[in-house]
């Protein structure tokens, strides 16, 4: 039987969080955790930047969600990604994230996310990426984001003989 998958138009969001010298990145859509990554702040800024850009170009999010009170280094990188990739930037308080998911601490987040995404929660290993995942999920539930659109590919052939 031949089944073709319709185009996914649900918004894809990247949460960025910071915890214990680690930056957590997580891209989610309403149905799936697409990918998660945790980076150490001790790494060189250039390699951090490269890894973040590689993650963004792999996962293709449309919106970046930042937790408030992030280190200046992380903020500047998020802004660079925003301007270069043309994404939207949203900020949210950590309290609002924990309140929406009805947990009191970051530790309880593991179980909560496991209940929301039972088959995928094991992939998230660090606290920072857990928090990033929670941030992205909360924003998906609380705010309206435009759905993804697909532009029809146009032929780029140039007419060499005018």
């Amino acid at each position, binding site marked *: 039987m031949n089944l073709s*998958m319709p185009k996914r138009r649900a918004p894809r969001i990247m949460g960025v969080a910071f915890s214990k010298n680690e930056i957590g990145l997580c891209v989610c859509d309403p*149905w799936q955790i697409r990918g998660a990554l945790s980076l150490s702040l001790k790494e060189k800024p250039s390699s951090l930047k490269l890894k973040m850009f590689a993650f963004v170009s792999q996962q293709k999010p449309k919106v970046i969600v930042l937790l408030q009170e992030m280190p200046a280094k992380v903020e500047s990188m998020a802004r660079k990604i925003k301007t270069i990739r043309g994404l939207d930037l949203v900020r949210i308080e950590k309290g609002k994230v924990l309140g929406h998911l009805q947990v009191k601490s970051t530790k309880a987040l593991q179980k909560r996310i496991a209940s929301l995404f039972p088959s995928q929660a094991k992939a998230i290993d660090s606290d920072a990426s857990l928090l990033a995942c929670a941030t992205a999920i909360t924003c998906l539930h609380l705010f309206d984001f435009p759905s993804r659109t697909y532009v029809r590919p146009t032929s780029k052939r140039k007419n060499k003989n005018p």
Partner: protein
Amino acid sequence: MSKTFLTISPGANSFGFCIADGSEIKRIFPLNLKGLVMEAKEQRLMANIRSLVYLFQPEFVLVEAVDRKRKTLKNKILLSFVVNFCLNLGLSVKYFPIDQAKKAICPEIKNPGWQEAVNTISRDFCSSIVVSNFVQKLFPKNLKFFEDCKGARFFPLSDVRRYYFPALLALTLCLGYQITFNEQKYESINA
């Protein structure tokens, strides 16, 4: 005036629909798709959603946010199809997880294993007195909701058939969403 919204919940072989605004549940119904080929399922879904949109003119569609790996491939395809169809009709789509809705309805259950328990006894949960109380309190116009089983509009929650389940989930999702985004109303109920 409060917004009318359409809630859609997918099941293994059926879909559930619930239309409500801030004061009234206007319609709940299940759509059984068992035994149909994919094209027929898509046609049925399209016809149902289109007629609901023309009848009630909802402002947005609330779709169950599910972990898609738990569902079958056909189900994933149908859910994506429904979302795309709603977007093409010009409706905005919002996503809300059923677990969050259940937790909003039942905040007093806090033991760690409650989620598994709810998942295994979901049918009982949906038809339980907790949901029926909330329906009666949140939507006073539907006070006779559970007794009004003569017409085709509503079905009695005591008589839960297999394909009714997604409709009950749609109702749960609708209630959970109302409670989460309407906290003042919820507090007044608790008081």
